[in-house]
């Protein structure tokens, strides 16, 4: 097992967290609560760290009494715990004592009254109607000549909703606060009481553009709990599809970055390439977004000889097109000029905020679950991409090199899939227990902590999309830039609203 659970008394919880935070050099990867009052155990709070050196996930856990639920906040010492504590406060009503910011993230004050905590087990589904009338308190920047620019939640483009509050002095942005939660749908609550097959379906709808990574992470959590390992072939197939998902999204972002600086020809060129991969996905699996491919214990589609041929042929064409796309982008001086030095996220800031995944690699943090924790990826040659400047240019470069790397990965995986046996699913015997499923999705590490009860139903499912960490990173990266540069910075991160809001 690659998880270690350390039980701490409430008075030692903070010390234990600080110890692992320093020792493992890891931000808080996830922090969440569980309602176990039915077993007379009160609440349980977990705080997870990523121990790359030891190939272990370390969970520090403690009990919190059910009657007056509160614990000592660790956010003053570990910044990356702040958002998680706010989440625990609004969803469970457990007070993190000492956390300076307790505003609600998802249950907006305007529509949700105080005192209803949806993730508590005794929460009634139809409760919480009737509105609280409080208004959200944005951080205020005051001074001569400073004014606020509110943007959203409905934006000009075809994109999900989010509210951004810019404080500017003249042109440069002094402060940016993102208020999210608009797409909150109560997904974590919806998971509860469902069986695992429905759970897979639901996980595919957490974030539509990473449907496959979500379902893989969920499935691997369930597989871990039930102590089974899918057949090797199924794992390789999953890796192929994960990389396909990665490249279509990278193309989408490259297209978006180009269009946000007004460079439309290559943008359209990239969108054609993206469409081709979506069509390829449909050809291979029947779904453009790879839905329904993952099932617990394996995969549902088989790579036949003709599918394999079609895949390899498409890759070849894709590689050729991509070379052209690259030459168009990199030979345009004005395009490069717009990206260079825009949206800078320094390494130190990224580390403190707990930024992960692609955005972190662009700022010089070498972390990739595929490299660090991989079971499947240890079989292939794989270069980890890293940039150090942390600007939009760096994030574009990472995407470009990851695209090329992914194509090579797909080829290697396809080579390893032997024809013959079509046994693609390990029989699942449901057990009770809990476990962590994780996968390096295209945005970064995607974590699913799942707990099953005795009858095999989901009791708690905590999802952490890398966006949850990285939104803060975006807000810091635009400081000093001008508002017209915000779209391109935003696109260079391309964070999920739905995955963040759940």
């Amino acid at each position, binding site marked *: 097992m690659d998880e270690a659970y350390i039980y701490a008394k409430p008075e030692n919880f903070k010390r234990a967290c600080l110890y692992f935070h320093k020792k493992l050099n890891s931000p808080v990867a996830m922090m969440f609560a569980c309602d176990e009052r039915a077993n007379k155990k009160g609440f349980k709070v977990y705080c997870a760290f990523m121990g790359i050196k030891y190939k272990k996930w370390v969970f520090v856990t403690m009990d919190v009494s059910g009657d007056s639920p509160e614990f000592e906040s660790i956010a003053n010492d570990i910044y990356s715990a702040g958002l998680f504590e706010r989440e625990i406060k609004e969803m469970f009503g457990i007070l993190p004592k000492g956390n300076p910011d307790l505003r609600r993230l998802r249950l907006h004050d305007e*529509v949700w009254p105080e005192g209803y905590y949806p993730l508590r087990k005794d929460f009634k589904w139809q409760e919480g109607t009737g509105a609280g009338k409080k208004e959200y308190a944005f951080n205020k920047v005051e001074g001569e000549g400073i004014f606020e620019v509110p943007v959203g*939640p409905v934006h000009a483009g075809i994109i999900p*909703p989010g509210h951004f509050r810019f404080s500017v002095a003249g042109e440069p942005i002094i402060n940016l606060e993102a208020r999210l*939660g608009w*797409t909150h*749908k109560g997904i974590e609550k919806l998971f509860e009481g469902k069986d695992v097959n429905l759970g897979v379906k639901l996980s595919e709808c957490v974030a*539509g553009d990473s449907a496959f990574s979500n379902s893989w992470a969920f499935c691997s959590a369930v597989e871990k709990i039930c102590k089974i390992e899918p057949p090797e072939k199924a794992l390789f197939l999953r890796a192929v599809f994960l990389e396909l998902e990665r490249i279509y999204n990278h193309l989408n972002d490259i297209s978006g970055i180009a269009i946000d600086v007004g460079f439309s020809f290559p943008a359209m060129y990239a969108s054609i390439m993206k469409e081709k991969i979506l069509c390829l996905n449909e050809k291979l699996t029947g779904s453009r977004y790879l839905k329904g491919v993952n099932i617990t214990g394996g995969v549902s589609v088989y790579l036949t000889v003709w599918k394999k041929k079609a895949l390899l042929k498409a890759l070849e064409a894709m590689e050729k097109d991509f070379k*052209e796309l690259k*030459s*168009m982008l990199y030979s345009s001086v004005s395009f490069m000029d717009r990206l260079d030095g825009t949206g800078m996220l320094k390494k130190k800031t990224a580390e403190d905020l707990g930024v992960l995944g692609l955005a972190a690699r662009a700022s010089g943090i070498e972390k990739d679950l595929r490299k660090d924790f991989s079971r499947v990826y240890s079989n292939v040659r794989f270069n980890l991409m890293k940039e150090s400047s942390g600007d939009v240019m760096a994030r574009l470069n990472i995407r470009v090199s990851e695209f090329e790397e992914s194509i090579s990965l797909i080829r290697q995986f396809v080579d390893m899939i032997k024809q013959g046996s079509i046994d693609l699913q390990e029989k699942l015997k449901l057990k009770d227990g809990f476990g962590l499923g994780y996968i390096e999705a295209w945005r970064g590490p995607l974590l699913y902590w799942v707990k099953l009860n005795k009858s095999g139903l989901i009791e708690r499912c905590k999802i952490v999309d890398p966006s949850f960490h990285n939104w803060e990173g975006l807000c810091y990266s635009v400081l000093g830039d001008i508002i017209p540069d915000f779209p391109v910075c935003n696109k260079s991160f391309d964070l999920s609203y739905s995955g963040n809001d759940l």
Partner: protein
Amino acid sequence: MINILKNRIIKGIVTRPIEMDRDIKKIGAELKSLVYKRFGRSFHIREVDTGSCNACESEIIAATNPIYDIQRFGVSFVASPRHADALLVTGPVSKNMLLALKKTYETMPEPKFVITCGDCALDGGIFKDSYYVENGVKNILPVILHIPGCPPSPLVIIKTLLTFLKK
């Protein structure tokens, strides 16, 4: 620049060749003439996401890419609801988005239509009966057309729009 010109010539017109082409052209021609007649040459849509998982947005954007190119039929997506003939709504309507959705609808000039896109916009779909979801758009605004699918493919979006305009 030279690269762009080169690729423009090499790529030529990509707008979906092969088997699907006939389909699109047929639909397209019909759609175009209808749009010309009913909406004075152009039909403008404003898209609002009320909590979808982003797959529907991805497909709507795909409908505007050079392969499907919905704009060639006079259908285009606009940035402001004040410019729009129709409101295209995705997502099951989260409580947070309820007010924003209503306000967007109110700002649109008459005559206006509401079209929903994706299974969860119909009745909440997979998110149905969650504590934070209003179970679809039809409880809030008069919906005239639904585009089914999770997510609907660009072709389905174009086809369904035709059905609507024919009415």
